[in-house]
């Protein structure tokens, strides 16, 4: 499969990827390297992973990162309750200590967390490590072994090597710099806000019910809105919500009903100061220019 085919296949499953991004995904799959996606919130980084999983009809395994995330929640944990029960049962049966130990520290008693689950699948899944910048430096260090060797070492059990190499996608909002060690193990793509044409294509793929005229208006409006001085610039997710809101209210023309437009702006502007900044007149002006 060439990268063009991949791009088309992704488009069929509803994800419009730029050329840059398509080449990066293609290389990440063929070279077996993790792909690090950076970009503002709402530009479709997470969506890419799920679309890729749909397109390849493979499983999507997702790990949401947060501060203090540790091995027990990300890689594996022993099933302690079961182990305790099993020891009690074994004591009544008169099983020897050594065989009990061998049994309760076997795969049967291991709870797989996302990272371990991802490398023990029969068919290669898509592993999404979401918002890696929220996890702390120690967790990045955990990841290094998994991302370069695709293996997990469990002291009681030994090293578990991957039965199939997952396609790894890491996303970052850039709230914190990632370590160079992690960066150099990954291919990199920066996902920017889409161009007018790309956004039109996305809108027609995701909300086919919107008429062409309104679609052009919506995209024009959002593109112009992104040029304003906003705290939180609306992403693609917001554009889709906006379109859905307009559809739900039965608005066919952005300029016709300023009050309704102002009400639907809550789908695009997510902070108080942004709402205050884009008044009804400003919104009207932007809508007027966007045609």
């Amino acid at each position, binding site marked *: 499969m*060439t990268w063009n085919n991949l791009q088309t296949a992704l488009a069929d499953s509803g994800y419009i990827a730029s050329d840059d991004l398509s*080449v990066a995904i*293609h*290389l990440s799959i063929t070279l077996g390297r993790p792909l690090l996606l950076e970009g503002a919130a709402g530009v479709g980084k997470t969506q890419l992973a799920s679309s890729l999983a749909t397109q390849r009809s493979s499983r999507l395994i997702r790990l949401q990162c947060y501060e203090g995330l540790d091995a027990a929640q990300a890689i594996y944990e022993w099933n302690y309750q079961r182990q305790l029960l099993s020891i009690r049962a074994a004591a009544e049966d008169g099983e020897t200590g050594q065989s009990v130990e061998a049994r309760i520290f076997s795969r049967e008693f291991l709870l797989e967390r996302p990272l371990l689950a991802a490398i023990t699948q029969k068919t290669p899944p898509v592993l999404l490590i979401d918002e890696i910048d929220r996890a702390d430096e120690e967790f990045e260090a955990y990841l290094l072994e998994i991302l370069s060797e695709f293996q997990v070492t469990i002291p009681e059990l030994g090293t578990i090597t991957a039965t199939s190499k997952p396609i790894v996608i890491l996303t970052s909002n850039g709230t914190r710099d990632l370590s160079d060690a992690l960066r150099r193990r990954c291919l*990199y793509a920066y996902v920017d806000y889409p161009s007018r044409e790309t956004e039109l294509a996305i809108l027609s793929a995701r909300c086919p019910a919107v008429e062409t005229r309104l679609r052009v208006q919506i995209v024009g409006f959002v593109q112009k809105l992104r040029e304003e001085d906003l705290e939180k610039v609306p992403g693609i997710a917001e554009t889709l919500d906006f379109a859905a809101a307009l559809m739900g209210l039965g608005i066919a023309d952005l300029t016709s009903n300023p009050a309704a437009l102002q009400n639907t702006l809550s789908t695009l502007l997510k902070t108080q100061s942004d709402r205050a900044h884009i008044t009804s007149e400003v919104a009207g002006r932007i809508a007027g220019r966007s045609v």
Partner: protein
Amino acid sequence: MSRVTRFAARDPGPAARISGFIAHLRDNGMRLGVAETSLALSALCEVEAISPETSHQALKAVCTSCKEEAEKFGALFDSYWMDMGRVKQKIVQTAASDGSDCVHSSRDAHDEDGKGSGSSSTPDGSDGQAESDGEGLLIATKVSNLMHKDLRDIVDTDDIAEAEKVARKLGAALRDRRSRRRVAALKGDRLHFRKIIRASLATGGEPLKLMKKHRPDRPRKIVALCDVSGSMTIYSKVFLAFLMGLMKGDPTADAYLFHTRLVRITEALRDKDTKRAVGRMSLMADGFGGGSQIGPSIARFAKSYAKRFVDGRSVVLILSDGYDTSPPAVMGSALAHLKKRGCKIIWLNPLKGWRDYAPVADGMTAALPYLDLFCAANTLADLSVLDREVISI
């Protein structure tokens, strides 16, 4: 005519060109190793390398690793592979020196990483704000004195002993930041199941002994950036002594001096012989007492050293009066960049101790939103009460 660079006939082939390209990127500040060269070659095997656009995209995915690199990659790619069509554009005019015409120096004041260039002839002029109350003249005469002075005359050993105490106290106050990750401990708030199970094997599954785990306090690392420009000379006695004390008291601390350049003095200050340490520091602080470029210095710090030495557990102490000769926007973006490392930033400003002081210097105003703590520090006594304030951050 094709824009693609014509390589010499004796060129040994694609592998050599790629390694040449990687070397070209390396020269332009990207950190790439041998592994990237081979990865780049295998990446090109996977796409139609005959098309320049596709090769561009493939090499971009392999060689870049952050937004800034991705942005400058296009120009770097073109200058190596698309040389033919760009010959005329490549005549880049060097930025005109903003120094005075009366001063001609054959040597530019380059910083340690050889990138940005400071102009050696720029005096410490900060839009006239520093001089508004007549202090400017006084400082100016001092500058010329200090240029020939050795730092050893400024810092005396007793001060350092005193400063060491202060720095230890401050370090102890900054020390604790609770980790979210639990470790085994005698007294803890959660059960350590893994240990309990292991131990209960011996007692037939009866967990007689309950092991605990807790959230440990992890030490913070102090990184101090000290301004030694002309306007700061009267305070440097205190601050340099403080730095010395800090380095002696805390083995993980890190220290830098800046004026128009940035220099890491950690290694020098670790010298056991105090006098020699100050001597080494004064050699490194060549240009001490000159102009101040706070914004660019912090930006340089954020781009170079901070990547290695600053993380979420660091506290960056900036010791400066905030009179910057470069535009305030530089300061703002530099601090924003630094803040992204997840560190806390404390600015100690000697002028804040003055009555009626307001942070009106443009640089200082631009910096304020990024600071976790903005404090006065004129004397060692001021620094010694600082520990009460830093507890809150």
